[in-house]
């Protein structure tokens, strides 16, 4: 488990240890920690919903668009889903670091970005459904 990662001087045990920000400031009230954890899980579920949507459209609606267009749309949706999972972890860490150091919770454009992604995807699929008939 202590092999070096290629390209970095970090070892696997460094990665798996608690990150440095976890040792700063004071431990937040457990209610806030658990609320932060649930927010993380809500974002993870959003990410899973995007993945499910991508695979479901590909599987259940093969005639919605010519195959290359359909595959590109579904892969894009799945990529946003996978990226959102990474972003949820990042935000979970940022939020707890801010709580530990009594700072304001960081503002982020994730919500605006997700609103736009979902709206554009819904519009695109609505147009495709209309055209496919």
């Amino acid at each position, binding site marked *: 488990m202590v092999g070096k990662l290629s390209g970095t001087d970090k070892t696997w045990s460094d990665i*798996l240890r*608690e*990150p440095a920000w*976890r040792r700063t400031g004071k*431990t*937040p009230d*457990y*209610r806030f*920690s*658990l*609320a932060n*954890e*649930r927010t*993380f*899980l*809500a974002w*993870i*579920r959003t*990410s*899973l*919903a995007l*993945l*499910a949507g*991508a*695979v*479901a459209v*590909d*599987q259940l609606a093969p005639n919605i668009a010519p*195959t290359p267009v*359909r*595959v590109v749309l*579904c*892969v894009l949706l*799945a*990529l946003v*889903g*996978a990226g959102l*999972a*990474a972003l*949820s*972890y990042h935000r*979970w*860490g940022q939020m*707890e670091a801010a709580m530990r150091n009594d700072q304001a919770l960081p503002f982020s454009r994730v919500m605006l970005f997700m609103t736009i992604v979902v709206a554009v995807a819904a519009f695109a699929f609505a147009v495709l459904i209309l055209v496919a008939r």
Partner: protein
Amino acid sequence: MEVRDPGLQPERTTLAWRRTLISLVVVDLFIWRSWLTSEPSTGNLVAGLPGLDYQGICALMAALATIVLASVVWIRSRQLHVGNAAASARLVLVSTLAVMGLGATAIAAIALGS
């Protein structure tokens, strides 16, 4: 009578973890369906294991992600049953990586299915 935790925080958190696992199983079902409905391939990657083509590997990867997340949910539920300590960064990171792995698997399944 002292109200120990009016917000039932640990219970809500446990339920949130379980909901997440159920959402992951939904994605699994579609990936497994993609494998089951794909054209049977003649060339096996491993001799003597019919069905283990690239789609079969996607199905296995999805199962692996499910096992990883289920273990995390099991560990975290046990922790929350006895106390209300915050999650370790390791558990949160492992569940994130499981979902990202499932995302990569979903992309592979979409690309292979066409």
